[in-house]
């Protein structure tokens, strides 16, 4: 980094700090829209487009970036407290976040999530800024063949979940994959298994599936209890100790935050890949190389850190192809592109020569947002966690109403509300009969993406299946994938043997 770049960065950093009066209210707006299922930074920016366009370039930029970061973090709050992941990117968060809340550790879980999100987001912003030209190249190597393997990393989570009851786990995962294949096919847009419903032509919509499987079914379950928190784990009065405990637990696992946020960053820079892929892949990787994989799914801090760091890593990652190549990495980046183009900003290779302050300004806005977000949101964990103590006779109907509206919002179809209810019933039956809803959901979310990359690869090779092993990077990823499946088994056997020694 030369001295002129450093001086631009310093100048932009202080300029961005001067926009605190935009950043702070936007953070709270982002937390709210991120927490409401169906809302996201992308559709909020669209709704507020007249305002965004009326602002000057720098203010509009700061507003959009702050909203993007805070909405990502906000989606984790209801995922942890009431098992409602508002977006697909937060779908892996409740796997360990919600069990923590049920154990009366909601406040800790929120603090862990905030620390992981902010550090993960801040760190990957810095890495992206420093290595932008290199990171922008990732998309040049990660093509459909390589993405198939990345998808398999995430989908292999089904096998991990199935470990407790192999047959039921695999049935749930397979059911999810089948549901995920509903919709028109990738190549010729021929409808499959849509049962004549036009609303299913574009596939099963993710938000209704997400809120139905997790939240609605959970509402059916918790109505049988007095409060979400288990009776043996009555929450204490609000105190700072739990918040600081959460911060301590997260900071102690800083290597974990760094590692999983980088997974998010790398997946984020690939055009078309998103937070849902990153959070599941990070969770799977975290579990595979953990010394305590058996604790995952029971309220393990590392199982919460992994998806939260990763999905915030994606946030900075999606800016890289937008700024360097002019290709938006995700839906929010695409909306930002529209707004910025209205202000006459031309993205692509020439951006950092023509308007360096805009390019660097976006990263600086992200960095400043994460810093301010950490300071403003952390104290609130103390109060937010009280949601888990609200009697379920009030909470369950609220969750159902809230999530049904959330299911309706993205497409505004009544059909989606019914679909959320149907998924809720499916989720309830699955829970009551010992099938894991997360296995179904992984299939629903990652199945269509796997199919897309698989069909593209086959189409490119004229149907030759060996195309899957045709690239060097792809083959390296295959080896890594095989290792991530085999090594945990080897480690597990070794641990078991060690434990058996004293007994002898």
């Amino acid at each position, binding site marked *: 980094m030369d001295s002129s770049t450093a001086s631009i960065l310093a100048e932009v950093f202080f300029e961005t700090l001067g926009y605190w009066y935009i950043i702070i209210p936007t953070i709270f707006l982002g937390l709210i829209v991120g927490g409401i299922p169906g809302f996201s930074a*992308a*559709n909020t920016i*669209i709704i507020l*487009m007249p305002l965004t366009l009326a602002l000057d370039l720098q203010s509009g930029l700061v507003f959009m970036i702050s909203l993007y970061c805070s909405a990502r973090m906000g989606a984790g709050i209801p995922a942890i407290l009431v098992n409602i992941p508002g977006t697909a990117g937060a779908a892996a968060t409740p796997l360990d976040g919600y069990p923590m809340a049920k154990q009366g550790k909601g406040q800790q879980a929120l603090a862990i999530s905030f620390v992981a999100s902010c550090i993960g987001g801040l760190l990957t912003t810095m890495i992206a800024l420093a290595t932008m030209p290199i990171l922008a190249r990732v*998309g*040049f190597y990660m*093509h*459909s063949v390589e993405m198939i393997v990345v998808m398999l990393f995430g989908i292999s989570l089904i096998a991990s979940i199935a470990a407790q009851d192999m047959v039921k786990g695999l049935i749930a995962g397979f059911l999810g994959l089948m549901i995920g294949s509903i*919709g*028109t096919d*990738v*190549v*010729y*847009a*021929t*409808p499959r298994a849509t049962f004549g419903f*036009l609303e299913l*032509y*574009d*596939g099963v919509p993710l938000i209704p599936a997400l809120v139905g499987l997790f939240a609605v079914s959970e509402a059916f379950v918790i109505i049988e209890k007095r409060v979400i928190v288990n009776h043996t784990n009555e929450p204490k009065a609000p105190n700072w100790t739990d918040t600081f405990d959460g911060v301590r637990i997260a900071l102690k696992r800083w290597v974990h935050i760094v590692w999983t946020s980088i997974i998010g960053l790398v997946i984020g820079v690939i*055009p*078309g890949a998103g937070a849902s892929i990153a959070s599941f892949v990070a969770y799977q990787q975290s579990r595979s190389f953990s010394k305590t994989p058996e604790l995952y799914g029971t309220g393990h801090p590392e199982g919460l850190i992994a998806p939260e760091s990763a999905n915030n890593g994606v946030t900075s990652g999606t800016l890289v*192809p937008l700024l360097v*190549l*002019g*290709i*938006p990495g995700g*839906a929010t980046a*695409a*909306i930002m*592109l*529209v707004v910025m*183009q*209205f202000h*006459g900003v*031309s*993205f*692509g*290779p*020439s951006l950092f020569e023509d308007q360096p302050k805009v390019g660097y300004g976006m990263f600086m806005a992200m960095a400043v947002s994460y810093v301010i977000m950490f300071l403003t949101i952390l104290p609130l964990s103390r109060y937010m966690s009280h949601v888990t103590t609200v009697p379920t006779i009030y909470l369950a109907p609220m969750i159902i109403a809230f999530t049904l509206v959330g299911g309706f919002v993205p*497409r*505004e179809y009544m059909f989606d509300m019914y679909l959320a209810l149907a998924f809720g019933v499916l989720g309830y039956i699955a829970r009551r009969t010992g099938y894991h809803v997360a296995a179904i959901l992984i299939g629903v979310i990652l199945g269509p993406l796997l199919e*897309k990359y698989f069909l*593209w690869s086959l*189409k*490119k090779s*004229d149907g030759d299946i060996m195309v899957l092993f045709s690239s060097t990077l792809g083959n390296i990823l295959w080896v890594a994938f095989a290792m991530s499946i085999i090594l945990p088994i080897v480690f597990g056997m070794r641990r078991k043997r060690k434990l058996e020694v004293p007994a002898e």
Partner: protein
Amino acid sequence: MSMKPMITRRGLLGTGAAAATLTLATPGLLRASTFPEGNINVYIPTSEGGGADRNFRAFSSVWKEKLGTDFEPGFYPGASGRVGYEIYMGKADPDCYNLIFGNMGPEVLNWAMQEPSFDVNDYFYFGQVDKDPCCLFVGAESPLQTMDDIIAAAKTRKLNVGTSRMAHPASIGLLALGDKLGIEFNLIPLQGGKSTVAGAVTGEVDFSVLTSGSVIAAGDSVKTLLVFGNNIVGEALDNAPSINDAYDMDLPEMLSARAFGIHKKAADDNPDRFEVLTRTFKETFEDPKLLEAYVASRGTPEYLQYAGIEECAAFKSAMLELGARYKSLLSGA
């Protein structure tokens, strides 16, 4: 003292009849004079953030001033635009308060591949916003930098070509080129303009074909080699030649044309409202602010071209005919 009644029975009846007639007639009179009384909903069959979104916002920012009301876009992507049209035709009230903003090129081509559930004559386009020819382009770092490179490479292996969707005028342009040169190309539907550009830039495919407006918006990341129509923008498309000039062909222009459409029933039942829509639509084109808004949204000024009902109908019909001709190649049927 006798008082003469102020209102006679005959007068009362007469006044009553007049008042009743006026009351009954008022809604009709007001309908004509006050339309629109609320926002106009616009169904867009692609996702937000894409070319249609950009284009719609630029045009509606000026049109709303002429019409005196706001436009509310709703995005209904899926199945190559089919979802948006099906929802518009099936669920939106035909009352002139609901319009569709579509692409008369690829979206109409779709109907030739798979018939929709509605009659394609039950809606029509009444105003074209812009029209741009499709083109063939490579990523800035692609090893294929000229058409000669492409032809030479195609003789050694089957090249993979990104397209937004199979049923797209750009796909037809490419297939026609392949026919002419005796080369077989492998079309890969990358599902949307952004992915099609990304595919060429990152090397997912050897090169891509797409509407040139989106290619121009991609800037320096791409290089255009051939235009499936007339290159009226010159440098903006790297001075790429037209396919007909370069290969001595007689291919009709492969165009993408964004236009507003409406239910036929809405226009038939509400001619007064429809007149307001078409008149203000045309007035929008006469306002210099439109060009400013269009350019600000990265639109190419040369592509901003008005066309009315008849021209749009001719375009739609030509696309249906073209689709029928290439159906077997584009639908896998």
